[in-house]
């Protein structure tokens, strides 16, 4: 008997009898099993219903992004094509001066991969970590394609004495491992010296950390601006009579329905030095003709255009939350003796926080990854990290570092999301 005794006069017993095991159905089968069986059909049906969506998400989202992210820490361009050299690197300590075996491995690998026309891939991989080395590989490859004779070290050095550079050997050692953190190091302006120690890159080459900071700072600023501009509009939308608020809503959404390019270009027309606004200011006489303001192709341009483009993402969640706030709350506060400012600050504003949180998250995350607007109106001082990612995707073709930068960005956004959840709670987020 496992009944719980509460004092002498009170005992709780299992109504189904003295058996203490799990509950059973009327015919003695375990209740848990019966429940699972009765719901299995439903569950299977539900699974088949979502299967297409699941497949779609897997094929178009998870797999390609996963592959892309994999490039940020995995690159077998060297190790797959230079097996002998990679094996030598694996057997020796870091900093070992290349011996005859090393030179032999290198020469044979170069010859083999040149013959298989893979030498370009190898050169590209080494070039990622040590710019300017790709041509060394390709030109050497051309010369050894038809065969190479010992003494290998001498032959290679005769072709190009750069092969003796210890920095090159150190870089090849790094590249010989398919898994590497070097792309992440490069993303934060760090590199490895000949001994493999992590150090900052040359001052003139430090660009990513600054870009990350600029991206987060500008995104924060744009989020704040959209809040300042969007809050009164959302409030108007939520409180105006239906007919007027519908009109206002159309005005808010109109930019949404216009092509992003058209909107960005119209900002160019307005803001450039010979543009509408400068012309107007000169005409009124506020600024002399020779000192027209530079409002575009710099950070100012990025801030103005992005604030405009992202404004609806702040307004809409705010609006949807404000619409649900019953006006009687503010009335109640007023009747209880609060001035209209106190009523707003203590009663109305706190209730808009879920919408504000959602809007700020949306705007910030969108801004952090924004690419086309800064590319068009940002000049050089208004470029964000995503412009650098695009540059590596399409310009330098260094997808690995592009992936590493993107992964860092994703990580930072997830960290912010986590922080938001800790501070405000994601359950409080209302997206509409």
């Amino acid at each position, binding site marked *: 008997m496992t009944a719980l005794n509460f004092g002498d006069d009170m005992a709780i017993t299992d109504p189904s009898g003295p058996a203490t095991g799990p509950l059973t159905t009327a015919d003695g089968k375990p209740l848990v099993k019966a429940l699972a069986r009765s719901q299995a059909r439903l569950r299977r049906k539900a699974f088949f219903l979502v299967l297409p969506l699941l497949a779609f998400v897997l094929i178009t989202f998870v797999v390609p992004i996963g592959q892309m992210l994999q490039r940020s820490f995995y690159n077998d361009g060297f190790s797959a094509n230079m097996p002998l050299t990679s094996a030598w690197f694996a057997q020796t300590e870091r900093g070992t001066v290349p011996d005859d075996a090393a030179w032999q491995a290198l020469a044979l690998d170069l010859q083999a991969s040149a013959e298989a026309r893979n030498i370009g891939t190898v050169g590209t991989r080494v070039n990622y970590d040590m710019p300017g080395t790709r041509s060394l590989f390709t030109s050497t490859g051309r010369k050894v394609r038809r065969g190479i004779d010992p003494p290998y070290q001498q032959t290679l050095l005769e072709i190009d004495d750069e092969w003796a550079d210890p920095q090159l050997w150190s870089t090849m050692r790094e590249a010989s491992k398919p898994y590497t953190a070097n792309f992440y190091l490069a993303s934060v302006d760090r590199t490895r010296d000949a001994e493999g120690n992590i150090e900052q890159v040359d001052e003139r080459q430090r660009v990513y950390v600054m870009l990350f900071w600029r991206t987060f700072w500008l995104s924060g600023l744009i989020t704040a601006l959209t809040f300042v501009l969007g809050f009164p509009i959302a409030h108007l939308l939520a409180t105006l009579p239906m007919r007027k608020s519908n009109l206002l809503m159309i005005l808010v959404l109109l930019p949404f329905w216009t092509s992003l390019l058209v909107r960005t270009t119209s900002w160019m027309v307005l803001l450039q030095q010979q543009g509408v606004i400068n012309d107007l200011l000169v005409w009124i006489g506020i600024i002399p003709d020779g000192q027209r303001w530079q409002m575009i192709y710099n950070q100012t341009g990025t801030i103005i255009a992005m604030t405009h483009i992202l404004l609806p993402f702040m307004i809409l969640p705010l609006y949807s939350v404000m619409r649900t706030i019953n006006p009687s709350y503010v009335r109640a506060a007023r*009747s209880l003796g609060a001035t209209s400012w106190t009523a707003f600050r203590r009663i109305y504003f706190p209730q808009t926080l879920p919408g504000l949180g959602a809007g700020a998250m949306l705007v910030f995350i969108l801004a952090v990854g924004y690419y086309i607007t800064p590319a068009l109106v940002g000049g050089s001082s208004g470029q964000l990290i995503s412009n650098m990612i695009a540059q590596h995707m399409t310009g330098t073709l260094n997808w690995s570092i592009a992936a590493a930068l993107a992964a860092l960005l994703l990580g930072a956004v997830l960290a912010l999301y986590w922080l938001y959840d800790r501070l405000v709670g994601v359950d409080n987020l209302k997206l509409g």
Partner: protein
Amino acid sequence: MREDRKGDAFVEFEHVQKSYDGQTLVVKDLNLSIAKGEFVTMLGPSGSGKTTCLMMLAGFETATHGDIRLDGRPINQVPPHKRGIGMVFQNYALFPHMTVGENLSFPLEVRGLSRDERETRVKRALDMVQMGDFINRRPAQLSGGQQQRIALARALVFDPQLVLMDEPLGALDKQLREHMQFEIKNLHEQLGITVVYVTHDQGEALTMSDRVAVFNDGRIQQLAPPAELYERPENSFVAGFIGENNALAGTIEQLDDDKALVRLDDGGLIDATAVNIREKGQRTTVSIRPERVEFKPEMMPEGAHTIEAQVLQVIYMGDILRARLRVAGSDNFVMKMRNTIGQTRLDAGQTVRIGWHPEDARALDPI
């Protein structure tokens, strides 16, 4: 007797008019004075202007014309937060992001009271509505009735002289509503506050109020204590709106002071008391309460006129029997009989003669 209260009126509406669009008047010439400590209910169908009157008193709407005075002081230009009027809203309007204690503390905070003073007052107000244990709960964690109590406590915590209630019990179920009616009434008597209560529920109005103002079409149709309102309605609207009522249309055949003889449209003749009828030959609607209709000759006064009625349906309702009769061509004449041992049971199809005491039939304006 009620009229001479004007001298010590606590709340006074004087020729108040209100229009939202400049085209139509929502409130037409409202005159109302409420004495200190009185419980006055504004009762009426939706759109009758009662809530607008309350909102004008609270300060959320401005009167288009006329004066509103509180304790002799005109308050038309006083913003709501300076009126010091407690208010209970229809949906309670408890601040969802604050606990019960913070909700109650809010009016005291904005008045700059010290922390100790606030705590004492909040505790006292919560104990008053028997909700002392709920001080740290959020409104969402409370049932409707509990929220109602908190809203009441919040409206009272800063000791207002006047408390407005805008259909405060509308969202509660019947049993809870009756219980809360009782509690609000008790609080009113204990604290000696003046209450202006808006509702469209006539039962609520009759049980709680000292006086009821029946609103329709932007006007007060009748302002009277509940019993008077029910037994001596002044016009057809009030007669029809308060309680169940039989209306018979006819013409004044004979008028002697306030004793009238009414010829119904089908030729029958009935007794009535003239209320707002001036002369012979005028059209009228005679109003009779179902429980005052008699069908046993011995219950009627001597010489009372009777008319023929056909029993269409008898519904057993426990404490009473409710008969639907065909009278003067109408199928909706209702008679209520007490369910006593000796009560004669009527059957559908039976024909009886019905009548009433002339005082119970009131000849009012034609509908």
